[in-house]
């Protein structure tokens, strides 16, 4: 173990049925540093954190912690805590109906009695020393989220943690609250606490961190000092694309002629309740475009605003040149817009219903309450799309939840195609499905576009977007920051635009 390191993880392995979540991952945390753990979805960040906090038990590898001699075993969150590892999650895991002081000391008392005065006094001292402006006897729920998070950190600090893990702590904070949190983090750093910071905000990483460890597909990409890793390099490492390997992407999309086709959908200063900055957007007949950006950059929120899936707070919308109001999904559906949601399980399937009912659902709703499809008609529709999309299901009566992920996705795709939309939004249609199906869906997108459908395609995989889209809108930190088309559609420019900041 090195002199200054607080924590060393060596050659960590962890698999789940069918997935190798972590393969030979090393991680080192030194005294008094803020260390960013970066990676796209599924890179293994959270698995690594969970191994460290005892939620998952590692399959192989060693963990060393300063002051605990040789390799330690972490088999439960309790053991992690005893070793001085504390975690503050994105969702506050405190008790909102208890006071601040109670939250700091809950579960740590000795004996049955509680000395309230003593507890409040100690809590007050602790909060003062950390510069957190809150009274110990205040109810936690009445504090802002930022303060709640800081109370969680105070609790962790008071439990003499040497390793503090902050898992996406800033995602629900506004800018001034983030500043406060960073102040606290810097303060803790001075005291020698090692902080592991998980976030998807690049700006924040560069503002507060000293080192970055990048994971990809469950493997370690590398550990870097922050000065030596420019943003664009970081993005390229996270996405796994070297900066120069742009040449091998064959761009076989026919050049899309902008001016010739009419605009199907246009939005001006569209904004929703989900915290995206107002954006302008338009799509023409037969066009395939896409929103790109890192996870959490706001690309899904944009299309959700277009479909009216989130509360639309401002903006003007035109469909086929006519100004319309789209406030709820049914409005969008009536104007020929279809939306395949990102989270298939939560927003896509109706688990216990049959494949047939899942396919006809959207069209049935569009058609109206008093005009149900006959069972025969519904079966005919279902059979048509089962054949068209090659859905593998025992019968139309099979509940959709018993299908594989890829086939569930095809059923949902079939549901929206059945409504014969003019404008189809696909948010991560290929996530978590096998390669064959992925290619099928990409081909289908191009075929539908050639038949005149306008499509917005979102994918975490840049290759996929390059293969299908003729125009890419780049999002960063919930803001639309660029538009790429034609020759600009290369891995390099995309990554540069995603990274933004100091890439020049």
């Amino acid at each position, binding site marked *: 173990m090195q002199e200054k390191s607080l924590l060393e993880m060596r050659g960590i392995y962890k698999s789940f049925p069918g997935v190798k979540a972590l393969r030979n991952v090393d991680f080192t945390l030194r005294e008094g540093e803020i260390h960013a753990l970066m990676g796209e979805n599924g890179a293994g960040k959270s698995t690594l954190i969970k191994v460290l906090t005892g939620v998952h038990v590692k399959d192989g590898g060693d963990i060393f912690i300063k002051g605990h001699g040789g390799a330690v075993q972490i088999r439960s969150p309790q053991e992690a805590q005893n070793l001085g590892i504390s975690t503050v999650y994105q969702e506050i895991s405190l008790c909102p109906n208890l006071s601040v002081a109670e939250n700091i000391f809950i579960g740590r008392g000795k004996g049955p009695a509680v000395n309230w005065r003593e507890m409040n006094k100690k809590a007050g001292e602790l909060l003062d020393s950390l510069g957190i402006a809150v009274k110990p006897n205040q109810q936690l729920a009445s504090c802002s989220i930022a303060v709640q998070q800081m109370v969680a950190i105070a609790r962790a600090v008071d439990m003499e943690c040497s390793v503090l893990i902050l898992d996406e702590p800033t995602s629900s904070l506004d800018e001034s609250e983030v500043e406060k949190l960073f102040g606290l983090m810097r303060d803790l750093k001075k005291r020698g606490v090692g902080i592991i910071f998980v976030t998807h905000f690049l700006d924040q990483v560069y503002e507060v961190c000293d080192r970055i460890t990048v994971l990809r597909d469950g493997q370690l990409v590398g550990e870097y000092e922050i000065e030596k890793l420019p943003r664009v390099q970081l993005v390229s490492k996270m996405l796994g694309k070297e900066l120069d390997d742009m040449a091998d992407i064959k761009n076989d999309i026919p050049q899309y002629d902008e001016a010739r086709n009419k605009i199907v959908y246009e939005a001006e200063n569209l904004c929703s309740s989900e915290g995206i900055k107002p954006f302008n957007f338009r799509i023409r007949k037969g066009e395939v475009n896409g929103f790109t950006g890192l996870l959490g950059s706001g690309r899904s929120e944009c299309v959700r605003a277009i479909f009216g899936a989130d509360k639309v707070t401002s903006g003007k919308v035109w469909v086929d040149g006519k100004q319309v109001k789209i406030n709820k999904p049914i409005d969008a*559906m009536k104007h020929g817009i279809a939306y395949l*949601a990102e989270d298939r399980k939560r927003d896509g399937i109706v688990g*216990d219903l049959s494949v047939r*009912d899942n396919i006809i659902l*959207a069209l049935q*709703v569009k058609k109206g309450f008093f005009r149900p499809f006959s069972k025969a008609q519904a079966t005919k529709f279902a059979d048509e799309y089962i054949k068209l999309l090659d859905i593998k299901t025992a019968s139309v009566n099979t509940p959709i939840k018993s299908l594989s992920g890829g086939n569930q996705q095809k059923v949902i795709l079939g549901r929206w195609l059945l409504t014969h939309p003019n404008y189809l939004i696909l948010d991560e249609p290929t996530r978590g499905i096998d390669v064959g199906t992925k290619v099928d869906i990409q081909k289908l997108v191009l075929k539908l576009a050639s038949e005149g459908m306008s499509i917005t395609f979102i994918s975490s995989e840049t290759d996929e977007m390059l293969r299908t889209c003729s125009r890419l809108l780049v999002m960063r930190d919930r803001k639309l920051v660029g538009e790429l088309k034609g020759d600009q559609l290369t891995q390099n420019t995309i990554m540069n635009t995603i990274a933004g900041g100091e890439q020049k």
Partner: protein
Amino acid sequence: MSQNTKNNTASSIITAMFRKQIFIPLAALLILALFNFIMDPSFFKITLGHNSNGDPLLSGNIISIIDYGSELAILAVGMTLVTAASRGQDISVGAAIAISGSVVLRVLCGTNSRPDELQAPIIVAFIISCFVAMACGAFNGVLVSVFKIQPMVATLILFTAGRSIAAWINNNELPVVTDSTFSVFGGYIPGIPIPTPFFIALACFVVIFLVLKFTTLGLYVQSVGINEETSRLNGLNPALIKFITYVILGLCVAVAGLIKVSRISSINYSVVAKDIEMDAILAVALGGNALGGGKFNISASILGAYVIQFLTTTLYKFQVQSDALPAYKAVVVILLVVLSAPIVREKIAALFRKLRPARAEQNG
């Protein structure tokens, strides 16, 4: 060989039957019937008699089951929809029946609690009670769908207050309707030997099946009950769908209320339809519908309601004292519910699957 195939098909039919939802209430009904048949075959005897007016009427245990099971079966229809859409139950239906029955009597009797003739046509009284009961349902529905209160907590309000409101509607008097046409709804239509409540229930079933066939209510209710967010993204308004189910249950309450007050041509605020909400919920559960919402089968619930009435009648027949009745009922209910739990059904189905190859070997 042929023996073998026959066995296989037989047991696969049995396995398939186990998976069918309606199997549970059907099996319960058969067991109850068999039990009665063994204990006393005369249980099933139906006799044709005449009342004091000389009109023919049938009597016997079976007749009393289809008679007294009517209100429960009608409520089970609405309760099934409420359960499926809002993933919870309405426990205020008994109190709401008291309210709606009280309204019927209030309209029929006017200010005088024992009028010599009706103050309004029965149909008017019934329609007004329908609106009142639907308003009760709407009240529950708004609490559940707009304010997102747990159904049982939301309906607890009316459950607590309902019977007092019912008494208040009639100034705490007990109106009595002397007009004999009013007792038809809870009794017999002159010349027809089968009790009227059975026909009313039948009419309700026909209406709900027509509604389910000619509207998309069934699909929407199930979709909302299974996945609210997906339903919303597919253009549905989950709050509205839930609200509608509560209003439909309100309508069922009004019909049940009319039958209840017609039976005695009066009302007893504290005992009318007492504990019927629990029986209605039980009917839904017995029908194999998940009390956590989602997919539903109305026929199974209706059958479940009659099974409960069958059970009650059986217990009466064996001269179980009426205050001991709930205890006996509870024992049977535990048995039925445990048997119908998916985990047990899966075990039974697995047992049959295990028996099948064993038998095939013996034959082979």
